[in-house]
C-alpha cells in the first residue's frame, strides 16, 4: 500500500508541475495574475507531494519493506538505523527523489522571496523551475521508479553498499545535491530574463546570492567527497579525476567563473552574453554530470548504477541547450556590451582572464572525461587518459588562477597606473620572491612546489595588505583594532567573504602541493612482533583480532606506531559483509598538521601470524580539510545579507 501511495503521489506531482509550468507561462503572456497564483499553488502541491514521496520511501526503509525493490537492494535487516535513513539516497532512484525534493524546496523559497520583488521575471522563473521539476518527476515515475515492487518478496535485503556506510556519505550527497539543485535557480532567472527581454542587471542581482548558496553547498559536497575518498577508500588520495568527481567539479568551475564575471557586469555593464552563457553552461553541466554518472556510459568505481535513464537525461539536456541557445539568438541584439575594455592592465582583464582559465579548466576536465567515449565512438578503440592528463593540463591553469587571485581584487578598474601597481603589488611580489628563496633554502627543490608556495605567499600578502589598509582606515577613525576588523568583515561581507574564500583556496593549494610532492609510502609483510620503518616512524605488528559487528565481520590488526616514543596503536581492518563477494578495507590513521600516518591492512594469514600492510606518511593533507573549512566559512560570510551603514 505504502509504495502505491508513493507512486501515486509522484504521478499527481508530475501533473501539478506540468500544469503549474503552463499556467505560469500563460499568466505571464496574458497578464492574468490568477493563473500565476494557480501555478504558485501547484508548486506548493508539488513540494508537499514530493515530501510525502521522500517520507514514504524513508518509512519503507525503516520498516524493512523488502517488497520494494529499491529497499531490498539498499538495505538489509542488519543495516544500522542511521544508514537505513541515508540508504534512501544510497543509489539512483532515491537520489533522484532527494534531488527532486530539494528542487521543490528551492522553488518554494523562490516563491517566498521573489513573488513580490521580481514581478516580470517571476512567472517565467516559476515556469522554468516547475518545468525542471516535471522532468525529474517524469524520471521518478517512468525511468527510475523508486517504489517498484519486487516479486517474490525476499526474507532479507541485499544491503547498502558497504563503502557508503560512513558519516561522510550521509552528508556528501546532501550537500552536493543542494549545490546542483541550487544552480537551477540562477538558470531559471537567466531564462526568464531572456524570455522577457529584461537582460539587464535585475536577474543578476537577484540570483547572486542564490549562486553563492549553491556554490557553498557544491564546494562542501566536493570537500566531503574528498574526505570520504581519503579516509574510506584506502588508497591514500583525496581526488582521482574519476568521472563522478569530474561531474561535480565541472559545474563548480563554471559557477566559480560566473561568481567573478557577475562583478564585471555589475560594475561595467559588460559580459551580459557571457554571464548568461555561463549560467546555462553550469546548469547544463549538472545535467550532463548526472547523465555521465548515472547512465553507466563510463565504467567507474563510483558509478554504482546503470539504467535506461541515460536517454532521459541526454534528451532533456538537448532540450535545455537548444531552448537556451534559441533564446540567446532571439535576444542577441540586446546582449551587446555598454562598457568597453580600456586597458589590458586592469581589473576587468584580470577577471576576464580568470574566467577564461576557469572555463578552460572546465573544458579540459570535460574533454578528459568524455575522451574515452569519443575515441570509442569515432575510432573504435578504447583509449583513456588518466590522472596524468588532468594534472598536466590543469596545474598550469590553476597556478595562473592563483596568481590572478592576488592580482584581481587589488588592481584598479579600467586602467591600472604604474603607481597603482607599485602601491598594491611591490610589497607582495617581494614577499613572494623572498618566500621562494626561503623555501629553496629550506630544501624544497621541486620547481613546481617552490612556484606554488611562492604564489601562495604572494596572494596571501595581497590579502593581508588590503585587510591591513582597510583596518587602518577604520582604526584611524577611532575604532579599536579588533572591532574594526570585525566590522570590516560584516559591513563588506561580500568582498571579505571572497577574500576568506581565497585564503581557503591558498591553504588547500599548500595541502595539495605538500601531499603531491612529499608523501611517501611503503608496502610490506610483517610477522607478529616485526616492524617496518618509514620517514622516522616505526610501525610494529602486534596482533590480529576478529569481531562480529551488527552487519559484518571484522578482522583488525593492531599496530603500534612510534617515533622514538610510542604514539599510539592503529587498528586498520578488513570488513566482511555477507552480501558482498569481497572484503572492504577499513583504514586507520593518525592525522596531523604536518603529516598523517595512514595504515591499510592488505592481506593477512588466517592464523594471525602475518599481515601485509600499506603504510603511508601523507604530508600536509590536513591543510586541505582546514582550507576547505575556511573556504566554506568565507562563502557563508558572503551569503549574509549586506548591511547598510548605520554608524
Amino acid at each position, binding site marked *: 500500500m505504502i509504495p502505491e501511495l508513493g507512486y501515486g503521489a509522484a504521478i499527481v506531482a508530475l501533473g501539478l508541475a506540468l500544469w503549474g509550468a503552463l499556467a505560469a507561462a500563460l499568466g505571464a503572456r496574458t497578464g492574468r495574475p490568477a493563473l500565476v497564483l494557480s501555478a504558485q499553488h501547484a508548486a506548493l502541491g508539488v513540494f508537499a507531494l514530493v515530501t510525502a514521496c521522500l517520507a514514504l520511501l524513508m518509512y519503507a526503509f525503516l520498516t524493512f519493506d523488502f517488497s520494494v525493490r529499491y529497499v531490498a*537492494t539498499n538495505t*538489509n535487516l542488519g543495516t544500522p538505523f542511521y544508514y537505513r535513513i541515508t540508504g534512501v539516497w544510497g543509489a539512483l532512484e532515491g537520489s533522484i527523489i532527494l534531488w527532486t525534493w530539494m528542487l521543490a524546496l528551492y522553488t518554494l523559497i523562490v516563491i517566498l522571496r521573489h513573488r513580490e520583488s521580481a514581478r516580470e521575471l517571476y512567472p517565467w522563473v516559476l515556469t522554468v523551475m516547475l518545468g525542471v521539476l516535471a522532468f525529474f518527476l517524469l524520471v521518478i515515475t517512468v525511468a527510475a521508479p523508486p517504489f517498484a515492487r519486487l516479486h517474490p518478496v525476499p526474507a*532479507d535485503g*541485499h*544491503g547498502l*553498499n558497504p563503502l557508503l556506510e560512513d558519516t561522510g556519505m550521509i552528508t556528501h550527497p546532501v550537500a552536493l545535491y543542494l549545490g546542483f539543485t541550487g544552480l537551477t535557480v540562477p538558470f531559471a532567472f537567466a531564462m526568464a530574463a531572456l524570455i522577457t527581454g529584461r537582460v539587464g542587471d535585475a536577474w543578476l542581482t537577484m540570483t547572486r546570492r542564490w549562486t553563492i548558496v549553491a556554490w557553498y553547498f557544491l564546494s562542501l559536497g566536493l570537500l566531503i567527497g574528498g574526505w570520504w575518498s581519503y579516509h574510506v577508500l584506502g588508497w591514500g588520495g583525496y581526488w582521482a579525476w574519476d568521472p563522478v568527481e569530474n561531474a561535480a567539479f565541472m559545474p563548480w568551475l563554471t559557477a566559480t567563473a560566473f561568481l567573478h564575471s557577475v562583478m564585471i557586469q555589475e560594475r561595467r555593464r559588460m559580459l551580459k552574453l557571457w554571464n548568461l552563457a555561463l549560467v546555462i553552461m553550469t546548469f547544463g553541466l549538472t545535467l550532463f554530470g548526472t547523465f555521465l554518472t548515472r547512465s553507466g556510459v563510463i565504467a567507474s*568505481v563510483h558509478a*554504482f*548504477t*546503470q539504467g535506461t535513464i541515460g536517454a532521459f537525461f541526454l534528451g532533456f539536456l538537448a532540450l535545455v541547450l537548444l531552448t537556451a541557445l534559441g533564446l540567446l539568438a532571439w535576444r542577441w541584439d540586446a546582449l551587446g556590451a555598454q562598457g*568597453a*575594455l*580600456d*586597458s*589590458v592592465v586592469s581589473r576587468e*582583464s584580470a577577471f*576576464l582572464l580568470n574566467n577564461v582559465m576557469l572555463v*578552460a579548466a572546465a*573544458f*579540459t576536465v570535460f*574533454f*578528459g572525461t568524455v*575522451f*574515452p567515449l569519443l575515441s570509442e565512438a569515432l575510432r573504435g*578503440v578504447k*583509449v*583513456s*587518459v*588518466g590522472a*596524468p*592528463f588532468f594534472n*598536466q*593540463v590543469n596545474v*598550469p591553469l590553476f597556478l595562473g588562477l592563483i596568481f590572478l587571485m592576488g592580482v584581481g581584487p587589488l588592481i584598479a578598474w579600467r586602467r591600472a597606473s604604474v603607481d597603482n601597481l607599485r602601491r598594491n603589488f611591490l610589497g607582495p611580489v617581494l614577499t613572494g620572491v623572498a618566500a621562494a628563496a626561503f623555501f629553496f633554502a629550506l630544501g624544497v627543490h621541486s620547481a613546481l612546489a617552490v612556484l606554488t608556495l611562492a604564489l601562495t605567499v604572494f596572494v596571501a600578502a595581497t590579502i593581508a595588505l588590503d585587510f591591513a589598509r582597510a583596518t587602518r582606515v577604520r582604526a584611524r577613525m577611532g575604532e579599536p583594532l579588533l572591532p574594526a576588523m570585525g566590522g570590516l568583515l560584516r559591513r563588506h561581507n561580500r568582498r571579505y567573504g571572497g577574500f576568506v574564500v581565497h585564503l581557503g583556496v591558498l591553504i588547500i593549494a599548500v595541502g595539495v602541493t605538500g601531499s603531491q610532492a612529499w608523501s611517501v609510502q611503503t*608496502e*610490506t*609483510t610483517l610477522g607478529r612482533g616485526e616492524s617496518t620503518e618509514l620517514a622516522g616512524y616505526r610501525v610494529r605488528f602486534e*596482533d*590480529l*583480532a*576478529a*569481531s*562480529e559487528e551488527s552487519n559484518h*565481520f571484522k*578482522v583488525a590488526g593492531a599496530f603500534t606506531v612510534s617515533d622514538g616514543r610510542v604514539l599510539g596503536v592503529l587498528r586498520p581492518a*578488513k570488513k*566482511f559483509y*555477507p552480501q558482498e*563477494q*569481497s572484503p*572492504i578495507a577499513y583504514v586507520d590513521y593518525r592525522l596531523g598538521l604536518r603529516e598523517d600516518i595512514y595504515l591499510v591492512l*592488505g*592481506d593477512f*594469514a*588466517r*592464523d*594471525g601470524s*602475518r599481515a*601485509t600492510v*600499506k603504510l603511508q606518511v601523507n604530508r600536509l593533507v590536513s591543510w586541505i580539510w582546514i582550507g576547505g573549512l575556511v573556504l566554506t566559512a568565507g562563502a557563508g560570510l558572503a551569503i549574509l545579507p549586506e548591511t547598510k551603514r548605520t554608524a
Partner: protein
Amino acid sequence: MRAKFVVGGAVIAVALTYMIYAGVTQSAVYFVTPAELRASAVAGKAYRLGGMVLPGSLRWEPRTLDLHFTLGDGTATVPVHHKGTPPDLFGEGRGAVVEGTWSADGYFRASLILAKHSEEYKAPHGTSQTGYKELIRTLKGEGR
C-alpha cells in the same frame, strides 16, 4: 585595444590546445583485451588490459609482495606480474583491469590493478557467513 584582446585570446587558445594535445599523446592509455595485446604488443608501451583472472592461475607471495596471475578472454591469455597486495575486489574467476606495460620477457608488468565491481542483486546466502564465522574462530583460537 580590441586587437590586443583578440591576440591574447588566440594565444591562450593555442596554448590550451597544445597542452591538451600533448597531455593526450603522453598519457593516453589503450584499452586492450588479452587477444588484442597478443596480436600487437609493443614492449614498453602503456596499456590497460582487461580480462578474467583464470582460475588456478593466482599466486601471491606475501613476503616478497609478488602477485602472479593470468588474464584471459576466452581466446588468448596473458601472464601478469604485479608487485603489491591484491586489492579487495580482486580474485580468481572475476574480471579485472590492470594498467601497466608489456615486458619484452613475455609478461605484462602491472603497476595498478583495477578490480571490477559487480552490482547485480543477489539474495544473501548462508554459506559465506559460515565461512566468515570459521575464520573468526580460527583467529580467536590461535590469535590470542
